[in-house]
């Protein structure tokens, strides 16, 4: 593990920016907002160049690795910051790994400059296997006609394009679809456990695309594998930041609330589980930065990423569960922030694999 001065700068800038731009009052206000985030702040994120971090310089990016996105994502998780950053970062990696050169030149500079792009990989089948696709592209007169339904498409109305996985001639493949080509009626906002997030169901039926919409079919498998790990690394970062925040939030309450004449944080029944939660958090963060550091290393990177996601899920799920409990009656109200973190943990764990899923994969990787 190691950090360059640039990485430390990024961590510090991300920490203060996210704290300033996503105070809890803003988070609460955005829960009721249809779009779910503040476009002006999103513009600032683009201006800061955060979407350019892991895009090579010749596509207008900064040329760092995916691991360098981690500090930003972690601070966004910490502040429950609502933006299309996660979906766009994933899409950039998909294009970079799986697109043709022309697609990269067309799409990546715009992303690096701040344009949102989304990913439509999930379906009703409830599978984490990104090859479990039934949506399809069938040859038509002018190209291909799409059919099927994608689910849990993040931030779709905000995106200029969406990367879609379909079967073509029985093979998994990715294609890029301008959202301008999607009818409003094909999109339905889904009701999520995490109210800070926005995801949509996308009906593909009848949409037509040209041959040039498709990514390089020879790279689909590698791209899906890469995207799976990117999503889990960034998910781990988001969960890890959330864990830090919910522990801080709970500690503050335990230091002020009194019962039976004593500040409740002095009761070991609350203190010791919080210490346990804190230890799980530190473990999660250590695994997160180890994964960020080794991301992309063959084999090692996959193990590190799966460990990080598994532990981050465990850490936030436990910390937020205890946070609700230890806030007592207030914890049972919508006004207590503990529920926001608990819902976040459920949501982010559900995307691309939870602790149980990754542990099962790890068993095959480390116990062979």
């Amino acid at each position, binding site marked *: 593990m190691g950090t360059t001065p640039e990485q430390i700068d990024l961590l510090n800038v991300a920490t203060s920016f996210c704290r300033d731009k996503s105070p809890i009052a803003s988070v609460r206000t955005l829960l009721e907002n249809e779009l779910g985030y503040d476009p002006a702040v999103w513009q600032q994120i683009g201006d800061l160049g955060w979407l350019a971090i892991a895009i090579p310089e010749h596509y207008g990016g900064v040329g760092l690795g995916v691991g360098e996105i981690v500090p930003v994502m972690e601070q966004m998780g910490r502040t429950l910051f609502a933006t299309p950053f996660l979906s766009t970062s994933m899409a950039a990696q998909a294009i970079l790994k799986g697109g043709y050169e022309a697609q990269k030149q067309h799409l990546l500079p715009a992303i690096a400059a701040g344009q949102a792009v989304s990913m439509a990989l999930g379906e009703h089948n*409830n599978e984490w*296997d990104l090859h479990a696709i039934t949506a399809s592209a069938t040859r038509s007169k002018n190209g291909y006609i799409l059919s099927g339904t994608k689910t849990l498409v993040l931030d779709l109305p905000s995106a200029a394009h969406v990367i879609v996985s379909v079967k073509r001639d029985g093979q998994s493949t990715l294609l890029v679809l301008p959202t301008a080509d999607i009818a409003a009626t094909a999109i339905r906002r889904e009701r999520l*456990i995490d109210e800070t997030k926005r*995801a949509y169901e996308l009906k593909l039926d009848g949409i037509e695309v040209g041959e040039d919409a498709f990514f390089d079919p020879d790279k689909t498998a590698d791209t899906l594998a890469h995207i799976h790990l990117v999503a889990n690394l960034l998910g781990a970062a988001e969960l890890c930041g959330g864990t830090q925040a919910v522990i801080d939030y709970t500690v503050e309450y335990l230091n002020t609330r009194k019962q039976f004449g004593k500040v409740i944080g002095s009761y070991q029944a609350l203190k010791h589980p919080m210490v346990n939660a804190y230890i799980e958090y530190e473990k999660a963060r250590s695994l997160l930065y180890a994964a960020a550091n080794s991301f992309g290393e063959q084999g090692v990177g996959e193990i590190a990423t799966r460990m990080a996601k598994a532990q981050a899920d465990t850490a936030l799920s436990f910390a937020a569960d205890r946070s609700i409990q230890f806030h007592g009656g207030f*914890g*049972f109200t919508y006004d207590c922030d503990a529920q926001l973190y608990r819902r976040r943990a459920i949501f982010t764990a*559900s*995307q691309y694999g939870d602790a149980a899923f990754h542990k099962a994969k790890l068993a095959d990787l480390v116990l062979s």
Partner: protein
Amino acid sequence: MSAELDEYARAAEDWFANNTPAPPDFMLPLTFMEVGTDQQFDFLRHWQRAVYEAGFLGAAWPSAYGGGGLSQAHQDIATAAMRRHHGPIMLNAIGLNWTGPLLLDIGTETHKKKYIKGILSAEDIWCQGFSEPDNGSDLGNAQLRAVRDGDTYVLNGSKIWTTHGHYAKYMILLARTNPDAPNKYAGLSFILTPMKVDGIETRKIRKLTGEHGFTQTFFNDARIPADGLMGAEGDGWKVAMQTLEYERNARGGQAGGYVLSDVDPLEVLQMARDTKRGGKPIIEDPAVRAQLVEFAIEIQALNMGAQRAKIPPLVQDRPHGIPLMSKLAYTEYVRRIHEFATQLQGPKAAYYVDEPNAIDNGKWPRGYMNAFSATIGGGTSQIQRNIIGDHVLGLPKSR
């Protein structure tokens, strides 16, 4: 079993078989604390009344006041039949499990005549006013002030976590009648309080689930009749503790039925059969199976414990152990099994209530969040462990 009990059992079986309602097109609450809409409230009120009128609620309460005048064995049979047919919960929980038993034990003849029948029929909804915003766990520190003025008390202060607060006709209230008492407990009194009087207002509290259900109740110079005093002035703590014993089922006398639905691991099992991942039903995942077996053992142990607790020679070393642990063990079980069921759902765990793509319409995450009402309310799990450590194991007090 006597022939007469036998006959009653057949009647109960018949009645619940024929009268248990089909699930309505809205989600029913799993516990009385989860009633959040008028639709749910009306449905459950109607159901409780039907059960009562059929003779299967309050069967062991005296017939002079509206009860069935039969034995506890009768009521237990009726409750078991209700459970077997998965009938909805009884709505008027505070009345049936707290107020009613207390009135029958220490209430005046007037109290009994006035209140018992309305409790059973759900005509008169009761709520409970123990907790205050600043004294959630520390009930003995209640500060709501009751000042005697002739035949009335004048109330000022606030109560919180009032279940059915906006529906209730009456409240059982723990109030401070003497702020100068030698210790905090001695200054408390226990008063039956009408809710529909000037100066009492309720405000709905939004739960972490996003729904409503509880209220906060505000008292501003509210005048209520002093004849609702239970016991003497200053006996409030003792009476409240007695009331909690009914609630914890550590003392008999409840009207019967149930106010919390069972959560059967078999329901999760069904979900695990119906949900596929990796192309296979998740019930085939050994980790899922292992966890479901743990839950099956746990609920079986709690159910067998309830039976064993009724056999004194088998609980002679620590006779209060099982009654005092059951709230803790059961509510934590409910929380954990809902959490587990939520985590089982894979990508679809992302969804919530009213999302068409959600599994079982989101009842598992909603149930998980609602479960905290029981691990927090009525004494948090942490307080329950103190109580068991102190009163069952005999360890020194922690505070």
